[in-house]
């Protein structure tokens, strides 16, 4: 039962990542602007990330759904959520009021609700990682 629950949750997060990656892939130029708006990377860095990150999300999403390279995908996904939490969390203290760019260009969500959803998803991913630790092989 617990295993089934894990699979459902991982699949849902995988679908979310797949959707987020595909939405960004529709318009990488607009996504580069969204990244630039964080004022963390220069334009060249924003372009590189705008080309790379959507595919990373698509691959991780697919890996979580189809359970291929599952553990690696879980770790990358958790790392991406933590990175986003730090980057987006820092915008308000730095006087920026920007779209998160989470699901492509032009999605408007509140600062606190975005952070809350991110923390929740990160907590779920940590739970999935911890519960995925396989027991050591018993020696006969």
């Amino acid at each position, binding site marked *: 039962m617990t295993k089934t629950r894990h699979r459902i949750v991982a699949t849902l997060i995988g679908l979310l990542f797949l959707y987020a990656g595909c939405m960004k892939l529709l318009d990488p130029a607009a996504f580069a602007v969204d990244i630039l708006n964080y004022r963390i990377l220069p334009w060249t860095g924003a*372009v590189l990330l705008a080309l*790379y990150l959507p595919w990373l999300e698509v691959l991780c999403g697919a890996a979580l759904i189809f359970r291929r390279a599952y553990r*690696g995908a879980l770790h990358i996904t958790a790392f991406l959520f933590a990175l986003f939490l730090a980057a987006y969390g820092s915008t308000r203290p730095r*006087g920026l009021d920007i779209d998160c760019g989470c699901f492509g260009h032009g999605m408007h969500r509140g600062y606190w609700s975005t952070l809350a959803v991110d923390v929740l998803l990160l907590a779920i991913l940590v739970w999935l990682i911890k519960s995925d630790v396989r027991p050591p092989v018993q020696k006969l």
Partner: protein
Amino acid sequence: MPLALRQMLAILLLAVIPAVATGLWHPRRPSWQSDEVTLAAAGAWGQSVLWVDARPDSDFARAHIPGAQPLNEDYWDDLLPGLLDHWDATRKVVVYCSSLSCQTSRDVARRLREEVNLPNVFVLEGGWEAWERQQH
């Protein structure tokens, strides 16, 4: 090497291939050249700059960069002819909105490039706030 680490490396490397293809062939791939200009750089262009104010009408009415033409998405069709009256091929268009994090200047700049086919369209870094800061 632990399994999770091997899988992470495989995913991270695999993502590079479609990312390179996206950079080469995607119709909406980003340009490597930034369209942002600083106030100092725009100032150095002198009289060839055509300032475009992408803020709401009420903000434009309150104050704007001298000589700026208003153009926002709410009244695009009404305001565009006025802008084009002031434009000629020698001018560089610099669009600004209220602050560093506003988005409207980018949207207006993109529409000027894609729908009106204007060349040399830039976005002012820091927007109206940067201009005001320089004045004080």
